[in-house]
C-alpha cells in the first residue's frame, strides 16, 4: 500500500471529481463547482511536486513509472485542465444542467491522461487511453446541438477505430516479444538477430499500427480527418483541451513507447525515426495549406494544431535519428509542447471570451475587435505571434530549439520544410490579427469578460512572453524531465 503515494495525484483528482458530482446535487450556486475543480487540480499538482524530487520508481508490478518525464507532463495536463476550467466559467451557462458532470468528466479525462503519461506497460497504456477518451467522447457532444452531436459521434467512431488499430498493433508486438512491459520488449528486441525491420515483418506491422493509433491522438496526417469537425462542433473549452492536453499526452506516450521499447538497436530507431520524419513533413504541409482556406476560427486553429503536430514530430524524429542524442535534442519536444500548450490555450481562451459574446466563430466577425475588446485582442495577437514563431514569444524559441535538435541529427531537409511551413502559417495567423486591428467593428458594443477568463488569459500570455524572453530555466526544466531517454 505504500505505493499509493505514487498515484496520489491521480487519486486526489479522481476524489475531487466524485466530490463535485456529489456536491452538485445539493448546491444551487454552480460557481462553487468550478472553484472546487480548480482546487482539485491544485491539490493534484501539489502531489506531483512532492514526487518531483523523489527517487524515480516503478510501481504496481512495473505498470507505472514515476519519473520526471511523466511528472512534467502531469503538471502540463493539470495546468491545461485548470486553465480550461477557469475559461469555461462563462461558457457553462450554455448547458445549465450537468455543469457538475462537465467539470467531473473533464477531470476524469485528465486522470486518464495523467496515467497515460506514466504508464510503462502496453495494457496500462491502453486502459488509461480509453479512460481519457471515453470522457472526451461525452464532453465533445456536450452541447447536444446538431454540430456537437455529430462531432461527438465522429470522434467516438474514429477514436474507437484508432483504439482498435492500436490494440492490434500492441497484440502483434506482444506476440513477437512475449511481453507487454516496455523495458522487457526492449530487452527482447536487443537479443534479436537482424539489421532491419523488414526482416521481422510482424514487428514492423505492430510498430506501424501503434504509430497509427497514436497518430490519431496527436492528429498526424493521414489520421487527422476528425480534427476540423470535432474541433468545430465541440464546446470551445473542450476544443482547447483536446488541442493541448490530449495532444501533449499523446506525444508523451508515443515517445515513451518508441524510445523505451524500440529505442535500441540503432537500425530500429533509425527506421521509425524516418517514418516519423516523413509523416512530420506531410503533416505540417497539409495542416498549413488547409488552414489557409478556413473562415471559421475554431476550424482554422484545428488545422493549425495539425501543423503544429508536424513541428512536434520533427522533434520526435530527431530523438530517434541519432545514436548519440544530447539533452537539447531530447528536450526539444518537451519545450515545444510547453510553449505550444500555453500559447494555444491562451488563443482558445481569448476566442471563448470573444465568441461567446458575439455568438460567432467566424473570423470575419472578429473584425474591429481591437476597438471592442482591446485587451483581449492584444492577448489573441500575442498568441498568434507566438504560434507563427515570432519574437518576443515562446513560439520563436521553441521553434529554434526543436529545429536546432533536428539539424544536429542531420535532418536539415526536414527543418527547411518546417521553416517554409512557418512562413505559410503567417498568412492565416496574421489574418486574425489583421481583421482585429484593421477592420471597422460591426457594432460599438464593448466585449467584456469575467475575471476567471481574465486570469486564465493573463496567465497564458504572461508565461508566453516570459518563456520567450528568458527561456533558460524552462529549457533546464525540460532537460531534466527528458533525461531518462538516453539512446
Amino acid at each position, binding site marked *: 500500500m505504500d505505493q499509493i503515494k505514487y498515484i496520489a495525484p491521480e487519486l486526489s483528482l479522481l476524489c475531487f471529481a466524485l466530490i463535485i458530482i456529489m456536491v452538485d446535487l445539493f448546491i444551487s450556486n454552480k460557481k462553487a463547482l468550478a472553484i472546487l475543480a480548480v482546487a482539485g487540480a491544485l491539490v493534484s499538482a501539489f502531489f506531483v511536486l512532492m514526487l518531483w524530487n523523489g527517487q524515480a520508481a516503478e510501481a504496481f508490478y512495473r505498470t507505472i513509472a514515476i519519473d520526471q518525464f511523466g511528472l512534467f507532463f502531469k503538471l502540463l495536463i493539470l495546468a491545461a485542465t485548470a486553465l480550461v476550467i477557469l475559461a469555461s466559467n462563462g461558457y457553462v451557462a450554455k448547458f445549465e444542467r450537468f455543469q457538475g458532470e462537465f467539470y467531473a468528466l473533464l477531470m476524469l479525462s485528465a486522470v486518464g491522461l495523467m496515467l497515460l503519461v506514466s504508464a510503462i506497460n502496453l495494457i496500462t497504456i491502453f486502459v488509461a487511453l480509453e479512460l481519457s477518451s471515453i470522457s472526451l467522447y461525452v464532453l465533445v457532444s456536450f452541447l447536444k446541438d446538431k454540430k456537437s452531436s455529430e462531432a461527438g459521434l465522429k470522434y467516438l467512431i474514429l477514436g474507437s477505430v484508432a483504439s482498435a488499430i492500436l490494440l492490434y498493433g500492441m497484440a502483434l508486438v506482444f506476440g513477437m516479444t512475449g511481453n507487454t512491459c516496455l523495458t522487457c520488449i526492449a530487452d527482447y528486441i536487443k537479443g534479436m538477430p537482424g539489421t532491419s525491420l523488414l526482416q521481422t515483418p510482424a514487428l514492423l506491422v505492430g510498430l506501424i499500427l501503434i504509430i497509427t493509433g497514436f497518430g490519431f491522438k496527436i492528429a498526424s496526417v493521414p489520421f487527422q480527418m476528425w480534427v476540423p469537425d470535432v474541433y468545430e462542433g465541440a464546446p470551445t473549452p473542450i476544443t482547447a483541451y483536446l488541442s493541448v492536453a490530449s495532444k501533449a499526452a499523446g506525444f508523451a506516450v508515443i515517445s515513451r513507447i518508441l524510445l523505451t521499447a524500440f529505442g535500441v538497436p540503432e537500425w530500429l530507431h533509425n527506421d521509425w525515426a524516418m517514418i516519423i520524419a516523413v509523416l512530420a513533413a506531410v503533416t505540417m504541409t497539409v495542416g498549413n495549406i488547409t488552414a489557409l482556406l478556413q473562415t471559421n476560427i475554431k476550424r482554422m486553429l484545428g488545422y493549425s494544431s495539425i501543423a503544429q503536430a508536424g513541428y512536434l514530430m520533427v522533434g520526435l524524429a530527431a530523438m530517434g535519428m541519432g545514436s548519440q542524442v544530447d539533452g537539447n535534442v531530447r528536450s526539444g519536444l518537451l519545450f515545444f509542447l510547453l510553449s505550444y500548450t500555453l500559447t494555444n490555450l491562451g488563443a482558445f481562451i481569448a476566442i471563448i471570451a470573444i465568441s461567446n459574446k458575439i455568438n460567432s466563430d467566424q473570423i470575419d466577425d472578429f473584425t474591429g475587435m481591437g476597438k471592442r475588446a482591446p485587451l483581449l485582442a492584444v492577448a489573441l495577437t500575442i498568441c498568434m*505571434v507566438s504560434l507563427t514563431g515570432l519574437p518576443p514569444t515562446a513560439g520563436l524559441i521553441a521553434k529554434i530549439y526543436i529545429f536546432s535538435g533536428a539539424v544536429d541529427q542531420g535532418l*536539415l531537409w526536414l527543418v527547411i520544410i518546417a*521553416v517554409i511551413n512557418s*512562413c505559410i502559417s503567417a*498568412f492565416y495567423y496574421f489574418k486574425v490579427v489583421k481583421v482585429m486591428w484593421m477592420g471597422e467593428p460591426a457594432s460599438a458594443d464593448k466585449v467584456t469578460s469575467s475575471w476567471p477568463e481574465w486570469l486564465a488569459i493573463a496567465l497564458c500570455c504572461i508565461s508566453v512572453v516570459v518563456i520567450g524572453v528568458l527561456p*533558460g530555466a524552462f*529549457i533546464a526544466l525540460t532537460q531534466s524531465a527528458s533525461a531518462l531517454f538516453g539512446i
Partner: protein
Amino acid sequence: MALNLNLLSWIVFLPVIGLIVIALIPRPGQKTVKWIALAAAMASFILSIAVFIMFDRSESAIGQMQFVEKVSWIPAINSFYHLGVDGLSLPLVILMTFLGVVSVLVSWKIQLNPKQYFIWILLLETSILGVFCSLDLILFFLFWELELIPMFFLISIWGSGRKEYAAYKYLIYTLVGSAFMLAGILCVYFITHTFDMTALAGIQIASSFIPLTALFFLLIVGFAIKLPVFPLHTWLPDAHTNAPTAASVILAGALLKMGGYGMIRLCVSMLPQVAVQYAPFMLTLAVIGVIYGAAVTIRQTDLKRLIAYSSVSHMGYVLLGIFALDQVSLVGASFQMFSHGVITGLLFAMVGLVYDKTHTRDLNNLSGLARQMPVIVVVFSIAGLASLGLPGTVGFAAEFITFAGSFASTAVAGMPVFTLIAVLGIVVTSGYILWMLQRVFYGYPLDKYNGVGDADAVEMVSTFSFVAVIMAVGIYPAVLTNVISMGIAPIAKLIGM
C-alpha cells in the same frame, strides 16, 4: 573599457522603456504620448553619441568589439545576451538612433490612434538597434524577426493605398528570407558549436555536414531580400509607397541596412572563401540592381515610389562595394549605407511633407511648388543633390570611396568592368533626381496650390537636422571612415586584401 555602464543595453532598450510608459498610462493625451516617445528616442540618440565619442580609436582597438556586455541567456544552447559595437556597427547604431528621433518628429501630426502608433515606432527602433548591437546569433535572429511585427502594423494600419497587400507582402518576403537564415544559423552552430559572432569571424569553417556554398546561400537569402538585391526587391516599392512617412524613413534609412550589415558581418566574415568564389555572381546582381533600379525609377510618377526604386539602385552600390571584397570598397559600402540612410530618410521625409501640404504624390499633378514652399524646395534639393552624389555632401564621399575601392579591387577578375557599368547609374540618377525636382518645384505654378504653406517649426527641426548631418559628414567624412575602417580592417584581412 573601464567605463562600462551597460550603455548599449540602455541604447537598445530605452525605446522599450518609453513604449512601456506609454502603454501603462491610461488614456494619455496626444501630447503626452509624443513627448514621451521623443524623450525616449532622444535619450537613446544622446547615449549613442556618447558611445561614439568614447569609442576607442587607438591602434590596439582595431577589430575589437567595444562596450561589450555578455550575460548567460539560454545556457542550454550556449547562447548569450551579448552586445557590442565595432567600427562596422557603430555608425549604423547612430544612424538608427538619429532616425528614431526624426521619425518621432516626422510623425508629430499623426491623428489616428497615436498611442499605438508610437508604441510600434519605438518597438521598431529597439529591434533594429538590437540587430546592430547583437553579437550572439540567436539574439541577432530574435531582433531580426522582432522588427517584422511593428512594421506589419505600421504599414497596414497607418499606411495608404494597398496597405494590407503591402504589409502582407513585406511579412511573407521577410519571413521566407529569415527562414533560410535560421536554417543557416543552426548549421553554423552545429559545425562550430558556438553562436558567438566575434568568435565565428575568422574561424575556418569546414564540414562534411553541409557544403559551404549551400551554407553561404542559406545565410545570404535573408540579407539579400532585406537589402534588397535584384530580383528579390519587389516587396520594397510596395512597402515604401504604402507605409506612413516615419515608417518609410526608418525602412529606407535603417532597415535595409540590416541586409548589408548581415552580409558583411556573417557571410563575408565567416565564409570569406565562398564569398570570393561567388563574388562575380553577386556583383552581376549588384550591377543589374543599379542599372535596372535607376532605369525603372525614371519611369515613376508617384514621388514615393520614385524614391523607393532609387533605393534599389543605391543599394546596388552597397552590394557592389561588399563583393568587390576590398578594404576600401568595404569601407565604402558601409559608408554608403550610412549615407543612403540619411539622404533617403530625408527624401522620404520631404515627400511626406509635400504630400501633407498638397495631398498628392503624383508627379503629373505637382508643379511649380517652389513659390509656395521656399524652405521645402531648398531642403528637398539638397537631399536630391546629395542623392546624386554632389561633392560636399555625404553622398559624394560614400559613392566615391565605394567606386574607388571597387575599381581598384583585385579580389575578383574584371572588377573595373563591373564598376564602370555601375558608375553609369550615377548618370541616370542625376537624370531622375533633377527631372523630379524640376517637375515638382519649377514647372508652371498651379492655381490649386496657391494656399499651401511651407514647413512649420517642428518640420524644420527634423529636416534641418538631416541637412546638418549630410553636410557635416560630407565635408569631413573621416569622422566616420576612421571608425568604419577599424571594423573593416580585420574582415579585409580574412579575404587577404
